[in-house]
Every structure is written in structure tokens, then in C-alpha cells.
């Protein structure tokens, strides 16, 4: 912050304000709101009751109406403007049309006042509806879905690292006819989105009997052109003399890959592992296509079950979305150094 202020001015000497300073601040603050706003709203909304979620206009913070016990029953509290102009806090006994019968909770035996509902405001306090979180944990198969998600993410990441690094090793360290053509082909597949190949991919997976099988989710995703490209670019920087030295040292080509190239490519592997975890964790469309038995659902598909045909349980969806986001957020918080390195290294995201 102090650094930013010290760097203001046209020449970055900290003297005067230049229009670029204003533009920078507007850009940065605007960008932060744009990126963070939805996430913050999601987290805050996940603590709202269904009633608060349906409210219009929406509030930023989760509010809940206060209640009070009147004659053994919980009654909602309102701030009421009475006919004589006095303002009091009263509980609603019952309501008929636009007229509500209100009573002072401290004097429940008194004659109820009849109040137009336009003349009262609910008494509300910030209140976090934690039951949005606790109830799904009890009733929803959260832990089953979590286990499936973890299995898919971990296995897919391990296989991705293995296969992609082997391809990258061959493409970076061996001279063979058609090497560039293969590389080009792999890069070209970057331009084909999943929706284009969804149907043929479905046919392949169905023909191999992997429908309704977690491996049907894992296997089609493990060969990623991004991964091959990222690892290849990194392996190109490993000096060939090291490989020559290993060859003189009786190392087989497999040993060269396993004992020399893989350990030295660890930084790039870390980047790819992070990417792979984020991708597989957030995958929605492909698992939705492959998995139709509920006990195989991953978290992202499981969340989808809250959106019924007639009724969407937004409070649960929001709360579980927050929970599903936590691993990815943690990955970003702790490993962002690697992620930026990876993005800078490949020009991909």
C-alpha cells in the first residue's frame, strides 16, 4: 500500500498524481470487486434462511427475524407504528389478509391491537443459519460424494502426472521423425472443447463398459494437452548433458526418466498437479454424463440433486457449494506461487 502510494506520479517518483494512477486504482479496485464480489456474496448467502434468500430486494448480510415466546409459542417480532402514532415492538399473534393481530410480549393478556401490515417492520438481526451446513451433513450423502470426489481427483491427478510426463519426456528429449507433428497435434487438441467430443466420448466410454464407474470419469481426462505442453517446455530446460551422463552411468532410458528427469521436473509437476486437482474437483459436465447412480456421484453432481424440477433448495446448494469450494481455495492460498509460475511458463490458464 505504502509502496503503491510512493510509486504514484507520472515517473513513479511519488510526486503528484497522474491520470494513470487513478486508472490503476480504479482498475485494481474494480477488478477486486468483480472477482471477489460473487464469492463473498455466495458465502454470505449460504448463511441465509430460505425466506431471506427469497427476499426482494436482497440483503448482503444474512438477517433473520427475531421471535419471542408468547403463551408457549414462538411468535415473530415486529416494530409497529400504532394508530396513535406510538412505535412499539410487538409480537404477531395471527394475521388475516392485510390485518395482523399484534400483542405486547411483556403483556400477553392485553387486548391484541389490529394493525395494517404496511405499518409494521420485522425486527431482524444478523443471524447465521448454520443449519444450512449441519443439516446436509446429517441427511445428504455428503461424505459419500466427498469420497467419490477425492478418489476421482487423486487418481486422475496421479495418472495425469505419469502419462503426461512420459509424453513430455519423449517429446522433449528424443529426436524422432514426426516429433513436431505429434507435438502440433497435441497442441491442436487444446482448441477442441469437451462439448464437441462429448457424444463420441460417451460412445467410447459406453462401449468399454465404464458407464456408472468412477474410472469412466477418470480415464478420459488424464491426457491433457496443457499438461504435456507445460511439462515439455520445462523438460527442454533440463540439460542434455545430464542425460548423457546418466547414459554413461549405465542408466536405462526408464531410469533416466524416473530417476533424473522426473525429480528435476518437480516444479512443473507441482504446477500440473495443482491444475489437475482444480480441474478434476470442479468437473461437472462429464461426471454428470457418466454417472447416473447416486452412490457414485461426485460432490459437484451431488450438489445438483438439490435443484429439483419444481423446487430448488438454494440454501443447501449455496452452503454445499461453499464447502465444495474449500479445497480449491486452500490449494490457491497455499500454492499460488506455483500457479503463477505455471501460468507464466506456458501462457495458459
Amino acid at each position, binding site marked *: 500500500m505504502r509502496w503503491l502510494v510512493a510509486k504514484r506520479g507520472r515517473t513513479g517518483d511519488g510526486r503528484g498524481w497522474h491520470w494513470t494512477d487513478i486508472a490503476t486504482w480504479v482498475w485494481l479496485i474494480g477488478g477486486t470487486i468483480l472477482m471477489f464480489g460473487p464469492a463473498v456474496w455466495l458465502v454470505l448467502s449460504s448463511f441465509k434462511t430460505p425466506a431471506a434468500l427469497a427476499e426482494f430486494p436482497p440483503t448482503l448480510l444474512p438477517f433473520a427475524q427475531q421471535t419471542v415466546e408468547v403463551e408457549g409459542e414462538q411468535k415473530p417480532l415486529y416494530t409497529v407504528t400504532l394508530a396513535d402514532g406510538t412505535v412499539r415492538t410487538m409480537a404477531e399473534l395471527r394475521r388475516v389478509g392485510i390485518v395482523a393481530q399484534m400483542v405486547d410480549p411483556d403483556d400477553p393478556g392485553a387486548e391484541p391491537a389490529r394493525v395494517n401490515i404496511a405499518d409494521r417492520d420485522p425486527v431482524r438481526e444478523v443471524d447465521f443459519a448454520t443449519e444450512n451446513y449441519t443439516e446436509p451433513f446429517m441427511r445428504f450423502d455428503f461424505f459419500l460424494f466427498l469420497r467419490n470426489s477425492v478418489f476421482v481427483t487423486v487418481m486422475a491427478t496421479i495418472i495425469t502426472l505419469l502419462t503426461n510426463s512420459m509424453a513430455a519426456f519423449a517429446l522433449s528429449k528424443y529426436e524422432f521423425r514426426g516429433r513436431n507433428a505429434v507435438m502440433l497435434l497435441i497442441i491442436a487438441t487444446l482448441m477442441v472443447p469437451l462439448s464437441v467430443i462429448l457424444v463420441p466420448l460417451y460412445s467410447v466410454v459406453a462401449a468399454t463398459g465404464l458407464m456408472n464407474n468412477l474410472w469412466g470419469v477418470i480415464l478420459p481426462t488424464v491426457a491433457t494437452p496443457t499438461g504435456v505442453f507445460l511439462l515439455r517446455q520445462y523438460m527442454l530446460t533440463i*540439460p542434455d*548433458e545430464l542425460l*548423457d*551422463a546418466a*547414459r554413461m552411468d549405465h542408466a536405462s532410458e526408464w531410469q533416466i526418466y524416473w530417476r533424473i528427469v522426473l525429480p*528435476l521436473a518437480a516444479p512443473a509437476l507441482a504446477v500440473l498437479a495443482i491444475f489437475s486437482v482444480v480441474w478434476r474437483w470442479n468437473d461437472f459436465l462429464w461426471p454428470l454424463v457418466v454417472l447416473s447412480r447416486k452412490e457414485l456421484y461426485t460432490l459437484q453432481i451431488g450438489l445438483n440433486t438439490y435443484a429439483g424440477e419444481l423446487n430448488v433448495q438454494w440454501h443447501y446448494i449455496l452452503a454445499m457449494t461453499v464447502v465444495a469450494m474449500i479445497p480449491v481455495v486452500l490449494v490457491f492460498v497455499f500454492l499460488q506461487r506455483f500457479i503463477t509460475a505455471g501460468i507464466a511458463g506456458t501462457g495458459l490458464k
Partner: protein
Amino acid sequence: MGAIELENIHKSFGAVDVIKDVSLNIPEGELTVFVGPSGCGKSTLLRLISGLDQPTSGRILIDGQDVTRRSAADRGLAMVFQSYALYPHMSVRQNMAFGLENTRMPRAEIASRIEEAARLLEIDPLLDRRPGQLSGGQRQRVAIGRAIVREPTAFLLDEPLSNLDAELRGTMRAELAALHGRLGKTMIYVTHDQIEAMTLADRIVVLRGGVVEQVDTPLNLFNAPANRFVAGFIGAPKMNFLPRPDGRTMGIRPQHLRLGEGGLPVTVDMAENLGAETLIHGRSEDGHTLLAMVPGQVTPERGDVLSLQYDEADAHYFGEDGLRQ
């Protein structure tokens, strides 16, 4: 053990001929230096011997056995690379053990060999460090140590001292010479530095453009260069070449010129005082540049005309084809 023979070796990369019909005989136990300007094919030749590259045609024999089609690992050679090529993720000990582990040697034997090599090279305190924590000279020793533990029939060294600073290079050069004396193994040493070549070699192979120009002992190369290229390449500062009226070229080393009456008249361009001697840059009457290394401290002015004498015995004569006459 360790005699290496090259028979009519050719190597081309695509349309480029890098090695053209090289035949060489490297006797057992000798330290042979490949020297030449950059791009002359000396490193390529070393890689062909090591087995890391395959010759386009020709045969390579080690101790009389044809190893041309044998893999690098099975030739019984060890190589020290210019960049040292130490495995950065392994400790010094692991670096040295890697090659032995791959041959399934018993652990005790590996440990004793590493210890012995470490003692020889005085790197025992460094065994558990990573290459990144070592200085240039220490890395150099480790690279040599990694070669020694393999107990190879011959050592191949590819410009091993070129990444060291001048002072260290001198020390390591002496150590390498001593090491060669102690091990008594065949060594092939590639360098572009003729001082290294002169001081280390039993024999020097001078290469240019993929062709062997001359093979001889350092002093023979200096005293009787076979052609103009070798004459100009070996010796520092470079030999002076003066054309003769009969079409021949006379070569005279700067060290063999001295100040004295009745010699070559030379116009001084510049004089570099090195303390013990003075290097004079000048021009002969017909405009050829001349270098003279004269003893003591001489301080001629630019434009002065000096007279430089030489002994006829020190002069070399080369024909129009560049060959020695």
C-alpha cells in the same frame, strides 16, 4: 588396457560433414589432447568415442575390440562433461554411486570405492552436500570423482576446466596431470586452450574442420609444426608469417625475435609491458603485422622503427600449399 583406435571415422549431421575421415591411434595410458578452434569437431569426436553419438561410417576399437555399435555404458569409459553434468537433486555421494548402483554392484564395494575416490580428490567432507552447495572447483572434483569410481579403461574429458576461473584452472590442471600420473589410465582431453594442451598432453591431436592436422608431442608441435595452421595455432602469442619473394612463407615466433642491429626493420604500433618481457606490436616494411616478445622492459614510442634480429634456425618455411618445407 585402454588403447583406443579410430579407423576412417566420418560423421555428418544432415548435409554437414563434421568429422572427415579421421584415423587415430591412442596408445594405452597416454594423455591425449584434442585441440582446435571452436567448431573443429573435437567434442564430436569425443562423443563418438564415448558412444553417445554414432559415427556415419568407420570403426572404433578399444583394446582391439570393435565397439562401434556398442552402447555408451558398455564401452567401459567414463566421461567428465564441460558443465560437469552432476545430478542436481542427488548428494555428492549419490552422484558418485549412481553409475555403480546401475550395474548392481554390492553396497559395500560402492561405499569403499567412493571413500577411496573421495580421499584421493580430498572431497570427503562434501559427500553429503548437493552440487548446488559446491564451488566450481569442488564440482569439478566431484565430476572427476564420479568418473574415477567407475574404474574405467579410459577417461574422456570434455573441456573440463573451461568453467573455472584462471587461477583455479591452473591448480586443477596440475592436479589433473598428477592424477593421470597416479592412475596411469588412458585419458582423452578436449580443449580449445592450447596452454592446457601443451602442459597436460603426452600427445596433441590438432583438429581443424573435422580433419586431423597433426598428431605429435607438444614440443614437436611447437618446434616443427607440420603446416601453417598448426604453426599459427600452437604457441602464444601467435607465430608471425612473412611472405617471401619465392612464394614461400616464413614463420617466426614472437619469442624468437630480439632487438639488434641489422635485422628486420619494424615500425612500432604499440608496446605492451608485461614486466618481465615486452610484447611489441608492429609492422614490417611491406605492411605485415608483426609481434615480438622481447625480454626486459622496452618502451618504444608509436612510430619508432626498431630492428629485430632472429636466428635462421628458429625460422619455419611453408610452401604455397601451407605445408612445412
